[in-house]
């Protein structure tokens, strides 16, 4: 083997190694991209299914005695400032808090109470020392429960029946740009 041959071999090997490393990083990035897409999809499905069910059941008074009908407003939306004042919940600014009134299971019994959905800080940080937000679920004044981690946006819009104060549907934007949920409230409960 001459010195020129050796030089060519080393150069070709170096080119190959650079190529292999590049390919490895590209594959790794693609793998992360695919995982992120599946993760987003899973979150969207869970949020949609969970919230849709709860919104549809808003106003469900099946656990209340017929002698004690409720006059509570069954769906409400609060901005960050008002949510802090009314519910003492510090939600992420420029997001909304959704309040629903319905019969929910609480300590093995069904109770009519307000349930809240909002995005707030989890008091945890990620690898890059960025604070982590999440979608929370809260029954009345009881401790909040973390539903989905990594949700930063929650905007609520209420649709009323024409010439009435009754809410007929709720639209929620829970992720930008593609997390939209529209749910109708069952009229039978109203």
């Amino acid at each position, binding site marked *: 083997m001459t010195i020129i041959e050796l030089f*060519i071999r080393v150069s070709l090997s170096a080119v190959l190694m650079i190529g292999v490393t590049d390919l490895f990083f590209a594959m790794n990035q693609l793998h992360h991209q695919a995982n992120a*897409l599946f993760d987003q999809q899973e979150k969207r499905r869970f949020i949609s299914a969970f919230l849709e069910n709860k919104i549809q059941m808003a106003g469900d008074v099946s656990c209340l005695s017929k002698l004690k009908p409720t006059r509570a407003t069954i769906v409400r939306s609060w901005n960050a400032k008002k949510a802090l004042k009314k519910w003492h919940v510090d939600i992420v600014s420029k997001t909304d808090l959704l309040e629903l009134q319905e019969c929910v299971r609480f300590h093995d019994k069904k109770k009519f109470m307000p349930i809240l959905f909002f995005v707030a800080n989890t008091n945890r940080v990620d690898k890059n020392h960025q604070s982590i937000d999440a979608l929370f679920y809260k029954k009345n004044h009881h401790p909040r429960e973390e539903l989905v981690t990594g949700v930063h946006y929650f905007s609520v819009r209420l649709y009323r029946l024409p010439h009435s104060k009754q809410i007929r549907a709720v639209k929620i934007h829970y992720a930008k740009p*593609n997390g939209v949920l529209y749910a109708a409230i069952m009229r039978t409960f109203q």
Partner: protein
Amino acid sequence: MIEVLTAMSITTIVLLSLLSYQIGLVKEAAYLNMQSIAQMQLMNATQILIANQTSRNRRAAWNQWNKDNATVLPQGQGSDNAIDTHLCVVTLNWFYYHARSESITTVC
């Protein structure tokens, strides 16, 4: 020297085919993601039909739904066709490499 070059070519072909396979997987994941968004938009459409009984309300909500379609999906555009007095087919079309479509039959 020839052996080294042959080995390198084989390795490169294997790695490139692996990369193209992975790119295909990511494209498929992106398509599945869009399909799931389309299905959710169709579920939203069924809720719009339940919540809005008058044609005026329905038209306004439908326009809003179509605006959302254009935001959440590339060239997203929805339409509905009555197939019976109480049945409608809601279709959502979008574009990802070629025209895609998802539809649902619902009570309207």
